[in-house]
């Protein structure tokens, strides 16, 4: 049987994590279907149909799916589940919210945040903040998984177009409703898919200094801006910039940690980066144990100097 991926999108286009999930799904089975649920999301469905490896797109277009409420999405997925052995979500805020609800309704276990596909029922996933890697085997007949996007390459799109099939909407659960959102608009690249990330920690001292010191460097590198939990908790950086076990998991080509000591929970979010650079005034900071290149000194001098040298 085929694999069903629940796509993440903003109605107009498919979000990047879904392309990584398709790559993981193709390692399980060559027949990959994508569900696009939302309101007036035809454009996203058309883009999904062009993703290499996708053989069918299911489109559920209704107002009740507009805000991806778990209580409405889960019954939709359950209605389709009989045709699939594997149901795949992105390990993003949205996927993590809905996937366990789907698996409990199916009375099957869910496997979170897989980083490797060993076989159709066996996967690798990190535990204990990435300090151990578990190889796990599902024993249920259906397998619900979430995919850590940084562990799989994104698939590309091609000239082909898979058929798009309309799916009937389910009734509104009435259990929850959307009140409002406050999303942070940024002209920087998305943290999770950025090739370069410049990240700041507590040492930056203030929101003003986080912006003033890091922005010129991020601009020079076309980088996304991240932060440690300490910097977020102190209000220097927005919550969604947090990199770590409880924030975003990233794996860019280049991660520059500025004024970040390197706590276990932070390392869990970035230690798979290809190259790590640490700028810190404490030569004993644990971040230097994972950094490919470290420089000890005052970040207020070193960061502008680095930006100027690029």
């Amino acid at each position: 049987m085929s694999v069903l991926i629940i796509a993440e999108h903003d109605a107009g286009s498919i979000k990047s994590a879904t392309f990584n999930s398709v790559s993981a799904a193709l390692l399980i089975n060559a027949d990959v279907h994508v569900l696009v649920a939302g309101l007036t999301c035809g454009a996203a469905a058309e883009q999904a149909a062009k993703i290499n490896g996708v053989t069918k797109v299911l489109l559920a277009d209704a107002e009740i799916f507009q805000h991806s409420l778990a209580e409405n999405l889960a019954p939709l997925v359950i209605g389709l589940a009989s045709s699939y052995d594997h149901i795949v979500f992105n390990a993003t805020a949205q996927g993590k919210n809905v996937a366990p609800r789907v698996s409990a309704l199916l009375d099957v276990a869910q496997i979170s945040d897989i980083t490797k596909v060993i076989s159709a029922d066996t996967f690798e996933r990190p535990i204990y903040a990435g300090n151990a890697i578990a190889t796990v085997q599902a024993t249920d007949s259906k397998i619900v998984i979430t995919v850590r996007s940084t562990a799989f390459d994104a698939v590309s799109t091609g000239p082909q177009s898979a058929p798009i099939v309309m799916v009937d909407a389910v009734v509104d659960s009435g259990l929850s409703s959307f009140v409002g959102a406050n999303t942070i608009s940024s002209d920087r690249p998305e943290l999770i898919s950025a090739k370069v990330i410049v990240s700041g920690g507590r040492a930056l001292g203030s929101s003003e200094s986080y912006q003033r010191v890091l922005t010129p460097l991020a601009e020079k590198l076309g980088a996304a801006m991240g932060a440690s939990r300490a910097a977020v908790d102190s209000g220097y950086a927005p919550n969604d910039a947090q990199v770590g076990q409880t924030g975003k998991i990233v794996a860019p080509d280049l991660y520059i940690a500025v004024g970040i000591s390197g706590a276990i929970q932070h390392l869990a979010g970035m230690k798979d980066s290809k190259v790590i650079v640490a700028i810190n005034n404490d030569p004993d900071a644990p971040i230097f144990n994972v950094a490919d290149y470290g420089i000890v000194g005052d970040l207020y001098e070193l960061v502008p100097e680095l930006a100027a040298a690029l």
Partner: protein
Amino acid sequence: MKVLVAVKRVIDYNVKVRVKSDGSGVDLSGVKMSLNPFDEIGIEEAVRLKEKGIATEVIAVTCGTQACQDVLRTALALGADRAVLAETDVELQPLAVAKILKGLIAKEAPDLVILGKQAIDDDCNQTGQMLSATLGWGQATFASRIETETGAVLVSREIDGGMETLRLTLPAVVTTDLRLNEPRYASLPSIMKAKKKPLEIISASDLATDLAPRIKTLSVTEPTTRKAGVKVASITELVDKLKNEAKVI
């Protein structure tokens, strides 16, 4: 309203875990165990609701072995009124925990159930969602603010790219994110008082059947370690290395 908070006993977040050499798991012998940090936030939120006169009773519950009583005592010291241990020696996975909690909830009939968003040992982030699914209730995960209304709860959630606010009809399940609150420390008098608070032990198999693990752990290994890096003396040297050695800029 009656608030039930589910807590878990986990390896303390400051401990550097060690993988057993036979690959069977993580070495937990003699290691400091604590209340899962996200669950501490859950207890704190429930206690604050009580202090505001909204919650009438706060019940802390956990599932696991006899040893888990210590985290319930911590929850009681932090302000929970009473505690329940659903006792079992079976290895529990999120689906089984959700089923046991469902059984407890049928007995206790709380209006609001609070869980942490994830446990820092298995890093699953599943139990709250599974529980609300099995109860047929609404869910709000990754909460950073909770406000109550008559018959409903307004929850602001941390999502990728910002925040969103949902309204849930009660009863409902909410899972906590880091920024919901800053948990208090238990004072010595409250730790002493907690020893006298009621702690009930129920057999988990009386609350739910089918607790057997559905996922088999085949092996646990150390993550690949990064090779030791170098410290550079100047920005010029750093830029040179990034350009010519690492070739990332």
